[in-house]
């Protein structure tokens, strides 16, 4: 499903070149539950951005569903992102002036789905995260945990194959963090590929497959 071949990502910081990812090889199968851990600066977020096609690798190949993503144009990448990948961010990234339902429907709006169909789809994912009653609330009226659940609903509304979560519990208290992880795991059990980037060993340790990154290289790849 996902295959990285000799992926390098080099940033130019002033005079210096920073090797964020160094000759990365990675295969992830459909429906896997994977956590990426490592100290800060190890390249976790860079890897996630490349997997999410938000960033391009400096060299190497990225095959998603057998398609070489690196050779796509910007708009084709945007299209692939919309259809195949869902993002969950540490800081939720909800649009403050939109209601929960409107936030969830954003990917559908961008895809040009008619309103009636949007409403049916958003109703279903709202139910899945247990927030039907909050559909008309704005983000500021919701707790952190609720906001993240709205963000998850938004990430899954296009029924993507891959769900990428960048420190999804980093901004939450323990209880709501746990709740969020349970929702993500529930989605994974229904078949979505779940990739969580975290430096919290407790969260990362729950994944069936755990990858450790240090200085842009995979130091361990444990399947439990």
């Amino acid at each position: 499903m996902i295959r990285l071949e000799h992926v390098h990502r080099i940033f130019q910081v002033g005079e210096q070149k920073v090797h964020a990812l160094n000759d990365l090889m990675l295969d992830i199968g459909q429906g896997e539950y994977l956590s990426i851990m490592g100290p800060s600066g190890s390249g976790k977020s860079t890897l996630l951005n490349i997997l999410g096609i938000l960033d391009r690798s400096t060299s190497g190949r990225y095959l998603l569903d057998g398609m070489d993503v690196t050779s796509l144009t910007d708009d084709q990448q945007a299209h692939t992102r919309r259809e195949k990948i869902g993002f969950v961010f540490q800081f939720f990234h909800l649009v403050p002036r939109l209601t929960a339902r409107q936030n969830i429907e954003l990917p559908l709006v961008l895809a040009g789905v008619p309103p009636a169909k949007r409403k049916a789809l958003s109703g279903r994912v709202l139910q899945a995260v247990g927030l039907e009653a909050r559909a008309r609330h704005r983000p500021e009226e919701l707790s952190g945990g609720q906001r993240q659940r709205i963000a998850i609903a938004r990430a899954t509304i296009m029924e993507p194959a891959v769900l990428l979560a960048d420190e999804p519990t980093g901004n939450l208290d323990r209880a709501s963090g746990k709740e969020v992880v349970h929702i993500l795991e529930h989605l994974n059990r229904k078949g979505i590929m779940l990739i969580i980037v975290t430096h919290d060993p407790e969260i990362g340790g729950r994944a069936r497959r755990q990858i450790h990154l240090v200085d842009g290289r995979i130091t361990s790849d444990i399947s439990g």
Partner: protein
Amino acid sequence: MRPGDVLRFSLGALQGNRVRTMLMLLAMSIGVAAVVILTAVGEGARLFVVNEFASLGTNLLIVLPGRAETAGAGPSTFIGETPRDLTIRDALALARHPAVRRIAPINIGEVHVSWRQREREVPVIGSTSELLAIRHWKMARGRFLPPGDPELAAPLCVIGSKVRKELFGPHPASGEMISIGDRRCRVIGIMGSEGRSIGLDVEELVILPVASAQMLFNTNTLFRILVEAKSRETISQVKTHILSTIRERHQGEEDVTVITQDAVLATFDRIFRALTLTVAGVAGISLGVAGILTMNVMLIAVSQRTAEIGLFKALGAHRRQVLILILTEAGVLSLIGAFLGLAVGIIGSWVIGRIYPALTVGTPWWAIAAALSVAIATGLTFSVLPARRAARLDPVQALSRK
């Protein structure tokens, strides 16, 4: 994205930042209102002048005694020649041409007019029955000077409505004898209150047969002769006829000046049109300023919403979608601003029209169309840069900023 969604989203974004929205609306509407009001006033001034001249009559030629020389020291300077006067006979001679519809000799002066104990000094005009038609005047009551031999000094007069009110008050004026200077005449008609032309208000006039006026002023000359041509095309033909007739009658001297009203009118028309365009241009600059303000505000908006735009790209928005979203926002703003400005401008012109009723204040349609389209065009043009910047945002960087 569906157009309805784009629009709804832009309106939502505008509501989300009221201060910014109000600021841009203000700039846009001031620009448009300035164009509308200034062109309205300019156009009003032009129409005012055109109407003043039109009220003199149509296809009119004015014959003045004396030659307007611009050549400095001509032969007459040394000979000491004075121009020959215009007479009633000259005027009658001018009428003898197929292209001339009517003529009216004119004499003018200020004279004491009295009825019983009331006395007033008013401008008195001596002319013939044709004057009424030439100047497009209307009678309020009674009749105008009767046609007949202009050289007969009939003791008749027509008075303006204001003169009537001041001399007679509540008493009926028709048929009464009034004193004009050392002469007496019978009031046969009262002028309507409509009709104004440069310097003369019909309401304040007393009109006598030209021969009576000449006796009153103790002269046998004319102040000027009005000649009405049958059509616009024959004006130059009539002018030639006037000059040759006068030359014949004045022993070869072309000692009159003929002004064609159309020429004067056309000149004023051109001057005022140029003025209006200048004023509109100045107002256009304020629209340009509004455009630049739009650009700044949109740039700020884009950088304020970096995270949101980054999110959109992460959710799969194409560059073009981001571009369209930002442009729609600017377009909607400009449109609302332009229409607000139009409303303010129209109300403003109306108020000015109320304050100066003599001005027929009306914004020409071309100014409205131009103001609206320039406002929307500047709003959009100046938003292309911010919109492109937004479309090019790198989602990773946009999202990492918090």
